[in-house]
């Protein structure tokens, strides 16, 4: 079941141990940290999660998730 039911589970989000509700999706996690999903790209356990799959990809305990965006650089 989606939408954040179930007990908390721990993931590593951008290098920080983070608790999320069981059943949470990548989409819910992304919405917690950014206003606009089009400004980020997401990797889960070193695999790209395409934007179209955010809401159907569940977060599992121990997942290592990277949410990245653009910054200034040369």
């Amino acid at each position, binding site marked *: 079941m989606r939408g954040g039911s179930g007990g908390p589970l721990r993931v590593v989000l951008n290098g920080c141990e983070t608790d999320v509700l069981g059943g949470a999706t990548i989409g819910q996690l992304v919405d917690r940290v950014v206003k606009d999903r*089009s400004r980020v790209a997401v990797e889960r356990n*070193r695999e790209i999660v395409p934007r179209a799959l955010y809401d159907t990809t569940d977060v599992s305990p121990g997942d290592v998730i990277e949410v990245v965006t653009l910054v200034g650089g040369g």
Partner: protein
Amino acid sequence: MEPLRIRDRVFKSRLILGSGKYKDYDEMIACWEASGTECVTVALRRVDLKHERERRNLLDVIDRKRFTILPNTAGCYNADDALRTARLARELGLGEILKLEVIADEETLLPNTAATIDATRVLAKEGFSVWAYTNDDPVAARALEEAGAAAVMPLGAPIGSGLGILNPRNIATIVARAKVPVLVDAGVGTASDVAVAMELGVDAVLLNTGVAKARDPVLMARAMKHACEAGRLAFLAGRMPRREMAAPSSPKEGRFTG
């Protein structure tokens, strides 16, 4: 002047600017405008979990009709991390173009050539247009081309050093042998460095710190634009042969003085 073409991308300007080290976004955009650039580099980093929601994202600042975004793999120290970064950049909707850099160590920031070649091979197969940052080494440049690079980008001098074109003969050799565009990337400190690079026949110059850390960045951006155009024109014009000794420009005949 003939435009710069790298695969199917066409740019009127032969200058590519970075987006790092500026005082703020307004100064950065003003520099881009003054330089005439149509292509700008950016980096990928983790979003700030606490503050990203309040922040102006770089993608909200860049007018993509005017500026093509060239994502880089800066900060990657092995081929695998460069591949991950490249794929994330494509997922961000930046298309197939990529400035590939795999750095060897933090002190020199010199490229790890072997890892760059390996990553180029993989990314070229995945359809990326790989603009490969490399040493000023004609052998490495050729290997990158053979691995499928769309362009090779030898350094003028170490990243952020502003030391200019340290090995002009190698840059000229790379240009003479390459079938893909050659861009000087890194080490450009001031306008004359851009002119020297362009006079050697490179197709374009990529720079960041030389503008961002000038006392007046917008004025320097303008200087870089003129240097780039002047250098290109001088290359196309073909310089006079060098001579060991002087040769008078006024005739010896008809002198009426002693």
